[in-house]
């Protein structure tokens, strides 16, 4: 019945939201919001103090406005006020507002921290959780400073409730992530590892996240967790699908915890301890086996949860990279998924295989799937999946399949999505270079790239092809011929013009022998593209032209004409104009020798890592690129594009000038240094030591609740001295009768009365509305009692409530003997007064007359009722009429011992409900009083206050009289 209080009365808020939704235009919405803001502002500023409810409502409205995307610059103070409200909803809204609209105003922060501090100290788990959530949500340094030392204490304290522990663990995790320096390590860290053994699955799940983070930072300090994690994992993996009750998700036992444990294990190398390792391998095998079992449900949730564990297990197997058998099995499993009908699984299989491809054990196994992956690249409808396929092809590429893969990727490029073209271009360029056996293939490939996807060919790619051509004599002629042919196309990409211009400028002479590519033809071809090109390309071409003058003196007049033309020498662009002027002058005044020196062929570039690779890494971020090439230092090329990159070296005619301005420089960006494969990093970083912890040290914070022992039956009949008679009046109970009665409210057996002559013992049992009571009259003297007559009496009024039947007892009670009387009791309806028993007898001639209250109180007809907390509160709510509740606050008369209190409450007849009251110190009970005519449901709550040595007792029943009476009875028991 969650609907009960969804609307919890904030009608004004609902109306406002609905107003906003009805706004026809953005303007109307803003108008309505401004109106509301003005209203709230005036309320907040008004002289009249707002009550909590209004404050809550307005703060909630402000929050709504803020979440709509409008700025809110007031209300923080009111929200902070709500934090210290005693009302739960007000507090909750206050915290929500603070979490969403954190404000760095230091005065406010102080107040917020204060409120949080109070809630953390409240020992009320609901309030504590709210406070912890707020700390985690805000997660600021100020918060960490204020609370980082307090939360570990809450986390490992023995009496913290499970839900609070969960919140504390994750809250600490958040603080640790944001401000690790502020979280003090210490004694708690060793205890936190043992939370892996906690009985409460929720606590373990939350704790594992924290532990994993701690392990990453300080693997050595936490290595004991490996064996604990393995044994926990093993227990989950081997459990049946129903064993874990609510922690089973669609027939998969504890998927979140399993995945987190597998993730935790990825912080460490394989366990060294053979037993632990064996157990872990067994787990991994079981997980792989389960993947082959038929699904227990057709629901996608089932398969997702199951496969989530499988993928995480495969990640661990890849991380270990030491079990060839498991690696190959993992690869086969992923191979199956490659053709699964679920797109998500295909996506993940492709992704996971990428990492498998880099393991020496599984590289070959991955390669067997090449056709499927190529097919995926061609046919997958989802671009993200195609991208994964391209990644995998890249990862699985080696010398044996590079030609096939590169050509497939090239042909895919023609239809590839724009979003991934650049990346594919980079990948093709890298593969072509890395696996080039003959460089003509490489040149072809790159030129194809430019032809197919020129727009996506970044500078790095064409710089690189030029570097390689310059460095390799064997390919220069082929390159010149190929670019010349490529430039023949009527529409060719500007990048092609750049590459063509550069290469012909250097090596055009190698093809000049052929009349079809004579110097002038070459020049005319290039110059035909000139006017369509951007400034930087034109600048490059001008350099090519001056190089032509050196290479082919016969072109000098033509080229000088071009340089001299107004469009060059008076070009609006300074760079172009300067080049035209300088080149023209150079060509006219310098001697052939000088020209030859200045315009000499470029010297080879120093060997360096491909700048393309660096680019790809930068693009994908650290860890994304498989570092397949070995031994190359991570160096990045500092590339200045455009003008400076062109051979404008004429003004500084140093033969060693780096034409492309590609100075080697140490990497400063974030991309390269750790850009290696994640696997490698983890291996090199983690120490090899492993955990070996003696299993078993389970901390059990739960103190078992002993069932209260029945008070022992003490129906002793001892001889005693005679004593004189008491009173003649049969009607009035003795003075201490009430007190005696009270002793029996929470117990059924015991000595009801004793004086020098007589002892009366009671033993009784009650079931539903019936009871049977045995009274044992013991003669403590050595003298016979005569005319012994116990009579049950009750007021006329009580007769309608209670029916008691009994038989007369033997009137003679011998000295030292005991007689027994049985009373059968039927409760007709609830009652307040106890019936009386009058005992008359003669002892040594004196008439003895004692009247007692029979220990029959309405609570004897309780039937204990167990119920979960939600039912309890639901019923509590149903019994909210003022007259249904009775409450009493009273001083403790006995030591406030919780075990004794529990025993008393159970003796009272109600069930003792655990985990209902948010405050673990409080007691909550429930029961039904069964009478012949009605059943009366009763809820009780007892709140001890140890400091004050007081209790507050609250009873709620459906009948006013019962509430009062029970409250009266029970309040005398403590």
């Amino acid at each position: 019945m969650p609907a009960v209080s969804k609307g919890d009365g904030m009608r004004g808020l609902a109306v406002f939201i609905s107003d906003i939704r009805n706004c026809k235009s953005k303007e109307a919405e803003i108008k309505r919001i401004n109106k509301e803001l003005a209203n709230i502002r005036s309320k907040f500023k008004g002289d009249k103090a707002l009550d909590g409810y209004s404050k809550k409502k307005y703060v909630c409205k402000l929050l709504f406005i803020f979440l709509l995307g409008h700025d809110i610059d007031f209300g923080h103070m009111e929200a902070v006020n709500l934090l210290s409200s005693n009302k739960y909803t007000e507090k909750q809204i206050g915290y929500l507002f603070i979490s969403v609209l954190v404000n760095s105003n230091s005065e406010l922060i102080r107040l917020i921290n204060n409120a949080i501090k109070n809630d953390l100290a409240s020992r009320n788990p609901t309030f504590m959780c709210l406070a912890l959530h707020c700390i985690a949500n805000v997660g600021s340094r100020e918060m960490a400073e204020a609370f980082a030392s307090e939360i570990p204490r809450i986390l490992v304290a023995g009496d913290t409730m499970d839900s609070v522990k969960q919140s504390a663990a994750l809250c600490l995790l958040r603080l640790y992530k944001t401000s690790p320096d502020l979280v003090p390590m210490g004694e708690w860290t060793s205890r936190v590892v043992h939370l892996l053994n906690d009985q409460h699955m929720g606590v373990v799940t939350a704790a594992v996240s924290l532990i994993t983070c701690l392990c990453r930072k300080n693997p050595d300090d936490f290595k004991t967790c490996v064996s604990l994690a393995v044994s926990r994992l093993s227990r989950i993996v081997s459990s049946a699908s129903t064993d874990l009750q609510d922690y089973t998700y669609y027939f998969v036992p504890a998927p979140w915890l399993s995945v987190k444990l597998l993730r935790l294990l990825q912080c460490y190398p394989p366990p060294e301890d053979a037993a632990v390792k064996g157990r872990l391998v067994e787990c991994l095998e079981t997980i792989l086996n389960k993947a082959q079992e038929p699904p227990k449900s057709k629901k996608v949730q089932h398969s997702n949860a199951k496969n989530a564990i499988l993928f995480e297990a495969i990640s661990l197997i890849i991380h270990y990279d030491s079990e060839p058998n498991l690696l190959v099995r993992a690869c086969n499993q992923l191979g199956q998924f490659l053709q699964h009908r679920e797109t998500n699984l295909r996506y993940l299989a492709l992704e996971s295989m990428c990492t498998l491809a880099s393991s020496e054990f599984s590289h070959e196994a991955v390669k067997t799937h090449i056709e499927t992956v190529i097919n995926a690249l061609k046919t997958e409808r989802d671009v993200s999946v195609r991208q994964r396929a391209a990644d995998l092809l890249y990862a699985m590429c080696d010398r044996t399949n590079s030609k096939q893969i590169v050509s497939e990727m090239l042909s895919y490029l023609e239809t590839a999505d724009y979003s991934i073209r650049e990346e594919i271009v980079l990948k093709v360029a890298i593969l072509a270079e890395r696996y080039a056996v003959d460089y003509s293939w490489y040149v072809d490939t790159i030129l194809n790239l430019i032809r197919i996807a020129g727009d996506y060919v970044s500078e790095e790619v064409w710089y690189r092809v030029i570097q390689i051509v310059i460095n390799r004599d064997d390919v220069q002629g082929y390159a010149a011929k190929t670019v010349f042919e490529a430039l023949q196309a009527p529409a060719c990409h500007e990048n092609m013009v750049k590459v063509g211009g550069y290469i012909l400028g250097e090596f055009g002479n190698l093809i000049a022998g052929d009349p079809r590519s004579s110097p002038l033809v070459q020049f005319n071809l290039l110059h035909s593209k000139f006017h369509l090109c951007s400034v930087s390309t034109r600048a490059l071409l001008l350099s090519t032209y001056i190089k032509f003058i050196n290479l082919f003196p016969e072109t000098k007049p033509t080229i000088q004409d071009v340089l001299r033309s107004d469009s060059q020498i008076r070009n609006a662009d300074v760079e172009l104009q300067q080049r035209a002027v300088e080149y023209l002058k150079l060509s006219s005044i310098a001697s052939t020798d000088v020209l030859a020196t200045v315009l000499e062929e470029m010297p080879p570039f120093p060997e360096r890592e491909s700048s393309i690779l660096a680019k790809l890494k930068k693009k994908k971020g650290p860890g994304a690129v498989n570092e397949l090439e070995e031994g190359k230092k991570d160096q990045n090329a500092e590339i200045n594009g455009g003008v400076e990159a062109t051979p404008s070296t004429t003004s500084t005619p140093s033969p060693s000038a780096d034409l492309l301005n590609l100075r080697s420089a140490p990497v400063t960006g974030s991309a390269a240094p750790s850009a290696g494969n994640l696997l490698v990093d983890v291996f090199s970083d983690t120490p090899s030591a492993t955990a070996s912890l003696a299993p078993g040290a389970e901390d059990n914070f739960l103190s078992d609740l002993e069932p209260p022992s029945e008070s022992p039956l003490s129906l002793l009949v001892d001889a005693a001295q005679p004593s004189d008679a008491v009173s003649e009046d049969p009607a009035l109970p003795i003075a201490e009768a009430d007190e005696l009665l009270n002793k029996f409210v929470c117990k059924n057996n015991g000595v009801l009365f004793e004086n020098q002559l007589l002892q009366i013992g009671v033993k009784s049992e009650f079931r539903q509305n019936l009871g049977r009571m045995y009274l044992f009259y013991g003669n403590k003297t050595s003298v016979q009692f005569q005319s012994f007559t116990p009579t049950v009496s009750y007021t006329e009024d009580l007769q309608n409530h209670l029916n008691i039947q009994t038989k007369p007892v033997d009137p003679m009670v011998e000295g030292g003997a005991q007689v027994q009387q049985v009373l059968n009791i039927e409760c007709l309806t609830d009652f307040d007064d106890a019936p009386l028993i009058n005992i008359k007898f003669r002892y040594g001639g004196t008439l003895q007359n004692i009247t007692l209250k029979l220990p029959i109180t309405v609570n004897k007809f309780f039937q204990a009722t167990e119920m979960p907390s939600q039912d309890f509160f639901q019923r509590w709510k149903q019994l909210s009429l003022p007259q249904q509740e009775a409450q009493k606050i009273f001083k403790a008369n006995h030591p406030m011992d919780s075990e004794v209190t529990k025993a008393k409450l159970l003796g009272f007849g109600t069930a003792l409900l655990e985990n209902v009251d948010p405050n673990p110190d409080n007691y909550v009970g429930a029961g039904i009083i069964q009478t012949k005519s009605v059943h009366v449901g009763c809820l009780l709550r007892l709140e001890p206050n140890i400091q004050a040595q007081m209790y507050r007792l609250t009873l709620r029943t459906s009948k006013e009289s019962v509430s009062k009476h029970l409250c009266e009875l029970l309040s005398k028991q403590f």
Partner: protein
Amino acid sequence: MQAVPQSKGRGQLHGRCIGGRGAAGEVAVPVSPLSLSPVSSFSAGTEMIRFLLLFSRQGKLRLQKWYITLTEKEKRKITRELMQIILSRSPKTSSFLDWKDLKLVYKRYASLYFCCAIEDQDNELLTLEIVHRLVELLDKYFGNVCELDIIFNFEKAYFILDEFLMGGEIQETSKESVVRAIEDADMLQETMEEYMNKPTF
């Protein structure tokens, strides 16, 4: 709630998905070179949900939860960008996609999209199930949850989310426990107040 007049809502809950009309490929290109340095620098290596967005087919943000520190401006920019990317994806595509150095995991339920940003190495499938569990929780709490429930009871939706996830990590995987906690909290709204908070005795 039903009494509130509405322009959009229940009637459209089971409407059809918008297809990737027009140049879907081009729309999907994240063009703005948004500097995401806080996100990137946060890649400390521990897995968790970075943020969670819940938005409608019409591109209205219904719920947002950020587990990383960003300015409001950045948040709005990211939100706009992601909604555009996801709303333009066609229905049969995978639920995952790369975005900057993060990975988006999303799923559509009726008229609402649930989208989580997680780190690259995170478990995508289980993130999908986190989303599903969240929907189950909302459903259990509201009873046949629909977009309007979340609009009108946004604060409750936040409370439910908070009970389930904390700092981007799953806090309690048991549905019973979470629902119990929420319902307890609800019950407590009236009961606790009067009974925890009478003047101390």
